[in-house]
């Protein structure tokens, strides 16, 4: 009964009064990036045996579903997809109140190779929280990270295994990923306040 379309309240300052938004990736480029990531996952792991894709709520879940659909198209096999909300594992709960979302990993993670999927990789804190959360579901054999956008500015020793697009940004900018499942359009935009 959770409403997965609830707005990502990461914009805790509210909508900026003046902002410019510049599209940096369109629908075709997003599709090609996801196709490439899907191939890379297959290549690196020599197939999809023991792989589970775990999307981080909310857009990471949709990205994981799309990657699973591509893998099915290429290899004819279904990769299990899970969804993970890191709200209970964040280190900044006093500053970011956002509605919690479902965590469901039907396949479990024990002994499996988990590919975490997120839309934007930034400080790395979300991924740190996601890895803590995964450990509460068992002991994965390996954890890999796929991100549609890597915008830099890491605050933790975390690096992605699969990247759709590296986008150099300043900290004053923000990156928005729009996905047709939620936003009605596929697009990645750079916002400057």
């Amino acid at each position: 009964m959770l409403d997965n379309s609830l707005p990502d309240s990461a914009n805790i300052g509210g909508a900026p009064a003046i902002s410019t938004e510049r599209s940096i990736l369109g629908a075709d480029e997003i599709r090609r990036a996801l196709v490439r990531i899907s191939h890379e996952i297959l290549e690196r792991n020599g197939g999809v045996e023991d792989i589970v894709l775990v999307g981080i709520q909310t857009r990471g879940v949709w990205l994981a579903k799309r990657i699973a659909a591509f893998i099915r198209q290429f290899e004819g096999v279904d990769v299990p997809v899970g969804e993970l909300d890191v709200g209970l594992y964040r280190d900044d709960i006093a500053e970011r109140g956002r509605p919690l979302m479902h965590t469901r990993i039907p396949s479990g993670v024990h002994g499996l190779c988990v590919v975490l999927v997120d839309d934007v990789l930034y400080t790395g804190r979300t991924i740190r929280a996601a890895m803590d959360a995964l450990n509460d579901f068992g002991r994965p054999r390996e954890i890999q990270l796929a991100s549609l956008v890597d915008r830099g500015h890491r605050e933790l020793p975390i690096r992605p295994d699969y990247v759709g697009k590296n986008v150099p940004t300043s900290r004053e900018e923000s990156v928005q990923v729009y996905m047709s499942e939620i936003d009605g359009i596929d697009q990645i935009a750079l916002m400057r306040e």
Partner: protein
Amino acid sequence: MPTTTRRRPVRQAPLSPANGARPATPRHILDLDDFTQEEIEVVLQNTEVMREVLQRDIKKVPTLRGKTIITLFYEASTRTRVSFEQAGKILSADVINVSGSGSSVEKGESLYNTALTLQAMNADIIVMRHPHSGAPHFLSRFLNSAVINAGDGTHAHPTQALLDLFTIRDHFGKVEGLKVVIVGDLLYSRVARSNLWGLTKMGADVTLCAPPTLIPSDFLGGIGNGIHDGTSGHPFAGVKVETNVESALTDADVVMTLRLQSERQEAGHLPTLREYSRMYGITPRRMQLAKPEALVMHPGPMNEGIEIDPEVAHGAQAVIEEQVTHGVAVRMALLYAAVTPRTV
């Protein structure tokens, strides 16, 4: 509407020197009257996530690590106190239980001084039950710790009302439009008062039922003075009041029974408990008037054979134990709400 992702959170100046993680304004949870419908929705949604945590093999998340919760109970309680303690522990908080008996309260320490003492021990959240209505409101005016009302006098019991809402929504997928009948000691029931706020905000069709002596006079009087004619804009304008239990139960989706305390007979509100039981007790026969899929709820502890027949209390329609299980998840969601900024 597309929204920004991964924007760097604005760092707020820490208020608490201990860990800097306390919100600038503590979020007190005193009753449902100051919750909007959207805020109730968020609590119910977060409760679902907390219930998922309860179903895991490892029932522990690090969310409130380093936080201290003190439960301060001036009145007897089993389920509320235990479920708060369990909720806090699953969220990794340190939980300290203080009860009126066996503490400095017995030496005559005032409520105010007891609370200041607990705050000085760096309690982030104080969960409080008190026999006097308004005691948690009083404390919330002075404390930096978040105060959660676990039941005050005859006034409010918001955590019970939220778990009732959650239980109803879990079964019907919604609360709006359901006929919910609350039967019993309305005059003294804090459960009924908080449920009235919660149910009306969520759009339920509420009917209250009790002997005239156990209906608050403003409600009885309200029928005649325009509060209940549906045009006054009063939040309880749509609430119906019935003194006949059979008419009240007809076509009900949810039957909420309230505990009837034997003190009510001594105070002269009732001739005998037996008469109450005969006229207002929820029996299998009376339940046939409700819809076939109707739920029977009770906040506990029950007086079986008085307000509720044992056959109903333990029958297929009863969700009384589910209410207790949901109580833990709801209290986890509320402890989480107390330390996070408002989201809506």
